[in-house]
């Protein structure tokens, strides 16, 4: 075993390189899906929670043309309950809001009372912060955001939509009268959407101005979900108990919606299809792509290891013949070479797996700027695979070498 260190080193090196490819690919594959999923969350809420209502909202661009029923709202106090549902950890953001409108610049303008980034006590005792800002990472504000970690209903700051600000000539630092009170424009928000025509103030301030204390008209919720498949689209009412349990315990958008409705009986939770469906589609494409590229790389890595081992055995046909000629039983030779292949596979596999973890971590840091978490199972799995492939690579030429007549082999020479 200790002889021919150069050849051994080459075999171990080949196995290590192949394994490094495999590990890097597997690591990246597992990582990229999750990363892209959280990137896609910057598109905003994928669930809209509204009070159960008997009237139809008649609303164009945030202006209501028919007053909402007085007793239909979600109590602000129950909002944190959304974090307590079965998939509560997958809720990445929630933003309750109350809607109103007021006269400004000779026109009705919609005003939203919201949480910008509010600290609240989640069920379970931990303090979480969430709101509009966390939910809409892609929104841009010129000036600064309104900061509202704690409630303060005397605050006079607001965020003005860009189109509205242009129409009324507002800059950050300017003043605007809303409901007869002066508000300071902290920042100008530009999203490109309907928000550009609105004004955002703190939820508790709007509650005071409208006299609707503790009443919320809508909660936008962002949740990390599993892309919908055929099973997700089944009607939960027609499932048998086992199916229902599996459906309920999978983070599909519909099962999260159902769990929110269970936690907030006065509300309806509807998936925002534009966000939710496309999220699933893009995500499954990225995952599929990485999976196939990983498979291609895995196949290559296996071939590399296999050929390296086969080459080692081929080179040593001469030795095998001598062993046979000197009376070694076939199984003994096979065991000897097998053990050697296994040791080389394990050594190379370990080096390669560690290098591969490093490489996939580097890729993840470079591209996503986040430290990758490599699942601990990956390294033993890959080392096991390396040993198996090394043995398989050695097996075929070994069998051939053993089946040859030693005399013929030796006469032919190496």
């Amino acid at each position, binding site marked *: 075993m200790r002889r021919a260190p150069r050849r051994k080193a080459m075999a171990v090196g080949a196995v290590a390189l192949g394994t490094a490819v495999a590990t890097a*690919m597997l690591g990246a594959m597992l990582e990229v899906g999750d990363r892209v999923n959280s990137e896609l969350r910057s598109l905003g809420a994928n669930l809209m929670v509204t009070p159960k209502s008997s009237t139809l909202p*008649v609303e164009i661009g945030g202006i209501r043309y028919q007053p909402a029923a007085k007793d239909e709202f979600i109590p602000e106090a129950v909002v944190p309950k959304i974090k307590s549902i079965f998939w509560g950890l997958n809720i990445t953001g929630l933003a309750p809001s109350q809607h109103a409108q007021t006269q400004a610049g000779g026109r009705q303008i919609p005003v939203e009372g919201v949480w910008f980034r509010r600290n609240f006590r989640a069920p379970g005792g931990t303090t979480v912060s969430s709101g509009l800002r966390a939910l809409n990472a892609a929104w841009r504000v010129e000036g600064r955001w309104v900061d509202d970690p704690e409630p303060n209903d005397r605050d006079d700051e607001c965020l003005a939509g860009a189109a509205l600000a242009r129409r009324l000539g507002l800059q950050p630092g300017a003043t605007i009268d809303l409901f007869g009170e002066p508000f300071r424009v902290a920042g100008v928000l530009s999203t490109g959407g309907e928000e550009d025509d609105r004004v955002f103030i703190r939820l508790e301030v709007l509650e005071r101005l409208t006299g609707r204390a503790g009443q919320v008209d809508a909660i936008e919720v962002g949740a990390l979900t599993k892309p919908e498949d055929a099973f997700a689209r089944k009607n939960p009412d027609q499932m048998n108990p086992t199916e229902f349990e599996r459906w309920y315990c999978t983070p599909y958008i519909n099962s999260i919606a159902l769990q929110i409705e269970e936690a907030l009986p006065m509300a309806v939770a509807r998936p925002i299809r534009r966000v939710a469906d496309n999220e699933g589609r893009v995500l499954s494409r990225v995952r599929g*792509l990485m999976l196939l590229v990983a498979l291609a790389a895995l196949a290559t890595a296996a071939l590399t290891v296999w050929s390296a081992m086969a080459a080692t055995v081929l080179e040593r046909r001469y030795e095998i013949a001598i062993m046979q000629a000197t009376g070694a039983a076939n199984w003994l030779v096979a065991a000897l070479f097998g053990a050697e292949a296994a040791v080389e596979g394990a050594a190379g596999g370990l080096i390669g797996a560690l290098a591969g973890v490093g490489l996939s971590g580097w890729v993840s840091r470079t591209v996503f700027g986040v430290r990758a978490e490599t699942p601990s199972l990956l390294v033993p799995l890959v080392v096991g695979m390396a040993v198996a492939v090394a043995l398989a690579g050695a097996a075929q030429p070994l069998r051939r070498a053993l089946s040859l007549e030693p005399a013929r082999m030796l006469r032919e020479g190496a």
Partner: protein
Amino acid sequence: MFWRFVIRAVRFRSRRLVLAFAGLAVAATLATTLFSVYSDIDRKMRHEFRGYGANIVVAPAADSQTVPLQVVEKAERLGAAAAAFVYTIGRIGDERVVEAGVDFGRVGPLTSYWRVEGARTAAAGECLAGSAVAAHFHLAIGQNVALASGPCMLRGVITTGGPEDNQLIVPFNRAALDAGFQNAASLVEVRANGQRIEQVREALARAIPAADVRILHAVAETEADVVLKVQNTVFLLAMVILAITTLCVTGNFSALVIERSKEIGLLKAIGAAESKIAALFLSESLVLALVSSVTGYGVGLAVAYAIGRSVFTSAPQASTTGVNFAVFLPVAAVTILVAALATIVPASRIWRIEPAIILRGE
């Protein structure tokens, strides 16, 4: 004589060479696959984002209530999909409802996320209802909706989770008539190619100063971000994988030379020049490299095509152009270079081999 050596070498040592060949062919396959996938990923990923609908919105300018309809044509001339919308308040019985006018001929690409029961489009005298509207007024498909400005036949019910759920959707001209708009819309939505979005926005803003042309930042930026990151991941992985396979191949080829010290000694003993022997090995490697790069290229294209097909099946025009023929030259060049380098480096041993010592035995 020289070529006979090369050909014989290939013939006699076929098993050993097959291994070297396989290694190199695999490297070439991988290079082709990864670079084909990489070169096409931008277009294909962006294609997947089209389902998000509009990425530019044209809204009325500050002092106006409407957007001129010519925006739609202008956007289409810029190669973008565009559709006009009108919103007005209609009445069913004594209740009010939002009446949305939609240009069904154009809106298709912008509303692929609509979940529809029944028909997706409505002709004159027909309409679609948002799910909340349908539930509120107990409307069924095929029924006449008693809209105050004239009844319409319900063709479908749509669910989006957005404002459309609370709207009654009628053909554009009908809603424009009810709203009293002439050649104008409440809003025009535009879906531009993500790579050209800024140009399209500028061109529209310049052509129609009487409107507010906005990019939907969330859609546009998330798309750019995700596409870029996926692309970078594939690129970095491709580089890592290629570097590693190249190292493997180098080892393989060096072994070809090292193993044959005996033959080299023999050749030197019978008077062959060192450079001639080196050329012999080099041409053997180059033949191998050429054959394996062609093989690898063919297989790699097939793999890239298969990946493109099975991952991005929903992109009809993308599946046919999933392979990139421009990849061949660099792949062949790199393969040959690697093989040459992997031979030349150990070939320096040829000069150092002492025939007498090598031929005597171990």
